[in-house]
């Protein structure tokens, strides 16, 4: 039991979420799959993707990296996927795209672990887009019939698609997501049907939780065509390591901060609630493990097995819990953050 817990600890504490400063662009990139636009030259590359489980696993055999930009209308994402054998089969929107090799985007604009967006794209430029009301672990559901309304995506294959006779260099893709496509996260959410939200875009310093994932299947050539090697699980290569094979843990995703400042002036401002969030999410995980073993919630951080969270207050009912933690920000102010049994993170306003 202790060994299991220790391993779980390693898994959760091993890696910090990535950080990316997303610059504003005056000229929108042309969405043609090619990252040669002048606009992209201003955007830094992300770290190279690593295995979804992080340092415990070997580095991916092919390089993947992304760039982001934004303007008044859209969030722009560009990705570069090294790949000697570019293939894709699915052509119908909202197919289960990760059955092919794919590139995936996860967006949680308010960082509360709930109501987040997912999109998957294969080398055919076939899209699957969905909204998660809550993570699967908390009951979901995934809203498959949700659509990005005016999203634009494009793929450029540097090589030949579905042709195993040669060796490809890879594929690149561009995605433009209009802010208004993220209707559910308008800052002024409607109080009723009659008051729809007004158009919006992120404010200076707005920080989202974002991750990217690349699904890569072991493939072989059969009868002159690419075919997946049967019985092999997929590889998952990601920007911000999840620690476990589960993308649906938004608390592990990277931080993307939007700025209008120039790359010289701008610096990434770390999330001042990060330590509190991490302690609360550790308590969340331990509480659910405790409930599996004992049939009830732990009554305290200590009972849950969380030792380094002094001041964490626990409130339980038969099916719900709420844990609160006071934390001090760099400016000296104190804030109370909380998590509930369904992994929703929120600041308690006093």
């Amino acid at each position: 039991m202790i060994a299991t817990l220790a391993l779980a600890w390693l898994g959760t504490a091993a890696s910090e979420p990535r950080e990316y400063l997303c610059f504003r662009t005056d000229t929108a990139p042309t969405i043609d799959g090619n990252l040669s636009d002048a606009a992209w030259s201003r955007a830094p590359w992300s770290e190279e993707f690593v295995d979804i489980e992080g340092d415990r696993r070997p580095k991916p055999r092919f390089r993947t990296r992304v760039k982001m930009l934004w303007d008044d209308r859209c969030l722009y994402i560009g990705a570069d996927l090294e790949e000697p054998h570019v293939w894709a089969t699915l052509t119908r929107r909202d197919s289960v795209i990760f059955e092919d090799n794919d590139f995936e985007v996860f967006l949680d604009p308010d960082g509360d672990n709930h109501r987040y967006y997912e999109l998957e794209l294969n080398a055919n430029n076939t899209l699957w887009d969905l909204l998660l009301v809550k993570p699967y672990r908390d009951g979901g559901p995934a809203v498959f019939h949700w659509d990005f309304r005016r999203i634009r995506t494009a793929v450029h294959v540097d090589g030949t698609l579905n042709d195993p006779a040669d060796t490809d260099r890879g594929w690149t893709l561009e995605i433009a997501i209009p802010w208004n496509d993220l209707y559910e996260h308008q800052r002024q959410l409607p109080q009723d049907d009659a008051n729809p939200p007004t158009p919006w875009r992120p404010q200076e310093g707005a920080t989202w939780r974002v991750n990217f994932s690349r699904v890569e299947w072991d493939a072989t050539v059969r009868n002159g065509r690419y075919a997946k090697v049967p019985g092999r699980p997929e590889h998952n290569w990601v920007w911000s390591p999840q620690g476990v094979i589960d993308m649906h843990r938004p608390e592990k995703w990277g931080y993307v901060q939007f700025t209008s400042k120039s790359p010289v002036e701008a610096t990434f401002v770390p999330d001042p609630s990060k330590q509190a969030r991490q302690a609360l999410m550790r308590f969340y995980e331990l509480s659910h493990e405790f409930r599996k073993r004992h049939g009830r919630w732990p009554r305290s951080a200590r009972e849950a097995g969380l030792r380094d969270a002094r001041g964490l207050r626990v409130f339980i009912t038969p099916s719900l819990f709420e844990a609160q933690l006071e934390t001090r920000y760099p400016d000296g102010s104190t804030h109370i953050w909380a998590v509930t049994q369904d992994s929703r993170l929120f600041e308690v306003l006093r």
Partner: protein
Amino acid sequence: MSVLNPRRYLCHRATTPIRLDGRLDDPAWRDAPWTEDFVDIEGDAKPLPRHRTRAKMLWDDDFFYIGAELEEPNVWATLTEHDSIIFLDNDFEVFLDPDSDNHLYYELEVNALNTTWDLLLNRPYKDGGTPISHWEMKGVRTAVFVDGTLNNPLDTDRGWSVEIAIPWSAIMESKERPDALGRPPTPWKPDEGTTWRVNFSRVEWDVEVEGVRIRKVPNRPEHNWVWSPQEVIDMHRPEHWGYVQFTHAEPGQGAFVDDPSRPARAALHEAYYALHEHRRIHGAWPDSLREVLPNPGLPMRLHTTPSLFEVHCDCEYEDGSVHRWAIRQDALVWEVPL
């Protein structure tokens, strides 16, 4: 004692095909019973609507069918773009909560131009719900027939009728869940006795004729006429919606089986509203339910945290079995396994 007495409707199978043209003249519709005439959203507290509205429902292996008839001397509509705020015109609205838990429910609005707005609510607005407007009721078919002339104030119309066919495959979020890998669920359809919470609403604006145009009288609120009265001007209280029970029995046969949890649901919703009212005034939940509900309809137990609560209510069914039902601060209702 709380009042929670929603309408009930036994929904029979369509035995012959329904042609979606807005007219309820298909043979299948003939045998389907009408609902009660619609009443004001506030119920008996308000006068009866000045124009009659009523609906019929049917189902088959692929679709849930709704037919509605709206008496209307001046049929008008302006909105033509999908997902506009349709109730800014006169409209007909459908609300569906398949698992009767107050969360994850569907809304569809249609005007006399057959323009639609479909959305999914993760929970009611009063509970911080998000209108998921970019959700699409995939495969839904709607049709409108105007018995008279559209947008012509020079004559008197008889009204308009609506036909809606909702594929079962469009309603997946509140039933079958995707597997752990996120693969979508397989389509399903109701079993004998499956019961949904459903309501219909008709929004009617006071209008005046200006030349050859019909326009809304400025600064007048809309009328809301509904099938199952909501008691307050808020459609987003699914606990008041009607019960629609699907059956294979022939029209005229079969009997509606009442929801045995209804007394528990009534008591739990009474507690829910009393607890929220207390928090609104005092900024916190009360220490005990007795403080806010001295004479509950059934015995209940309150559990709280600073921002959450759950109330449990034991309820004896007619067969003598005891069931425990619960409600949360966000109005989710569920049965607690005993």
